[in-house]
């Protein structure tokens, strides 16, 4: 059975009747990560928000999104809340602004866990420490006591991942997980995702405009442009043998960007 099946989802503005997402279908299989790529403004984040019913008021979604055979777009508010708490976690785009600046990271982590998993504060603290260590934070008890501004972007991003992973969800959705980070932190965070994928067997959906990140992390890829699905298939197929003009354009620009770097690196392997 498919883990998540999205059928003909469309999102539109109820006042202006403008379509933002137009008729997109895809399916998520167990242990096969999905990457969603496209330029900024192509509707990548909007679609995910639509599926999780996190849209701004005034937006409406039609179509269907089946999780364990139930349509998430039609279920009660309480049921969708339960899915968001235990089955599908989301890591928001900007780790810096996703935390409340007035509370410690630990308090916010524990609050989330208590609320979502219905556990005591003590248990929540245990789980927080454990999860922080899992994502590669060494002094976890120190980090819990810190305020968001005292931690770097990469640390906050890892705290976010820890919160998302703590409820052992079936799916974690990461929205532009590496965009705000610098090169070294980026590769650390990617390694963390890979570890979670193999250790916990979580299936991920990655939203990114960086094809390199998607290529490393996702088995399937969905290319979007202006709210429409352009191409959908295995990562290797889409990136290497695409027949679609737009996908080719994305791949070409990415290659163009790195051509000189790759050339320099190839010379090294020739020397060696």
């Amino acid at each position: 059975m498919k883990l998540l099946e999205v059928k003909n989802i469309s999102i539109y503005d109820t006042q202006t009747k403008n379509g933002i997402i137009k008729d997109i279908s895809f399916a998520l299989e167990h242990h096969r990560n999905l990457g969603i790529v496209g330029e900024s403004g192509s509707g990548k984040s909007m679609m995910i928000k639509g599926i999780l019913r996190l849209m701004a008021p005034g937006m409406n979604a039609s179509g269907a999104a089946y999780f364990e055979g139930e349509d998430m777009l039609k279920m009660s508010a309480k049921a969708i809340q339960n899915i968001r708490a235990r089955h599908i976690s989301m890591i928001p785009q900007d780790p810096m602004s996703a935390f409340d600046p007035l509370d410690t990271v630990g308090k916010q982590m524990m609050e989330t866990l208590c609320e979502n998993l219905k556990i005591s504060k003590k248990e929540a603290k245990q789980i927080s420490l454990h999860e922080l260590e899992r994502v590669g934070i060494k002094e976890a008890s120190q980090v819990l006591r810190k305020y968001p501004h005292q931690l770097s972007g990469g640390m906050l991003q890892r705290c976010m991942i820890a919160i998302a992973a703590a409820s052992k969800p079936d799916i974690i959705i990461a929205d532009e997980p590496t965009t705000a980070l610098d090169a070294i932190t980026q590769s650390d965070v990617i390694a963390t995702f890979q570890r979670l994928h193999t250790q916990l067997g979580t299936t991920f959906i990655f939203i990114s405009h960086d094809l390199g990140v998607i290529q490393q992390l996702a088995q399937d890829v969905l290319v979007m442009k202006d709210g429409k699905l352009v191409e959908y298939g295995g990562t290797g197929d889409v990136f290497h043998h695409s027949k679609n003009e737009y996908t080719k354009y994305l791949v070409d620009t990415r290659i163009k960007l790195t051509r000189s770097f790759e050339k320099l690196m190839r010379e090294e392997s020739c020397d060696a």
Partner: protein
Amino acid sequence: MLEVKSVYKSYSKTGISFRRGRVPVLDDVSFQINTGEWAALVGESGSGKSTLSRLVLGLEKADSGSLLLEGKDAAVWMKENRGQMSVVFQDYITSANPAFKVKDIIHESWKTAGGNKSIHETVESLMRKVGLPLEIKNRYPHELSGGQLQRVCIARAISTSPRFLVLDEAVSSLDVPVQAQILQLLHQLKAELDLTCLFIAHDLQTVAYLCDQIIFLNDGKIVEQIETKYLANAQSAYAKRLLEAVIRFKV
């Protein structure tokens, strides 16, 4: 062109504390960029790259050490050569006045650089040069896309035909296809204009595309300076770590 000699810079610790202390940001930084060369300054966030760029731009003063432009003290040089140094920042939204139209934004630095009679370039030709459609001349910043607004900032930067250009993470907040376009534009400007450039970045892939030499900055110290063509042979541990961290896209 630019010569930085054993520059130190530290900031005082903020907050209420009995232990007054200073946090060193730059620690004995020395390097030079030859005229016509494009140099990249690469490092993690917090390594002091932005502080160094602020010192070069004269927005802050170094605690000790000297910054020389063509052999003269940077402050003196800037007074003598108004408008000859330009900058493009990472955050294009805050670097354009939201109440100005595109043509005014481009025109502004041109006007304030004043007294420089050698400038005959009009806003239109600048817009053409950076690949902007002329019909957006009368638009406001919020009506433009990120890539367009960054092009406006580049047009403004080159409007005074500068000889020295600082690009502070100028492409980092754009998405990949737009990054490629802007880099292509910069590449073209590099060929057309007689420019010396300090390019600050954290992504080695974009740097390799444009620059002749790469300076690695880690924890306020320069760990290695290397010509781009020998990048693969970088010796220092930090440079190697950065090279390994690059997310490659394989074809």
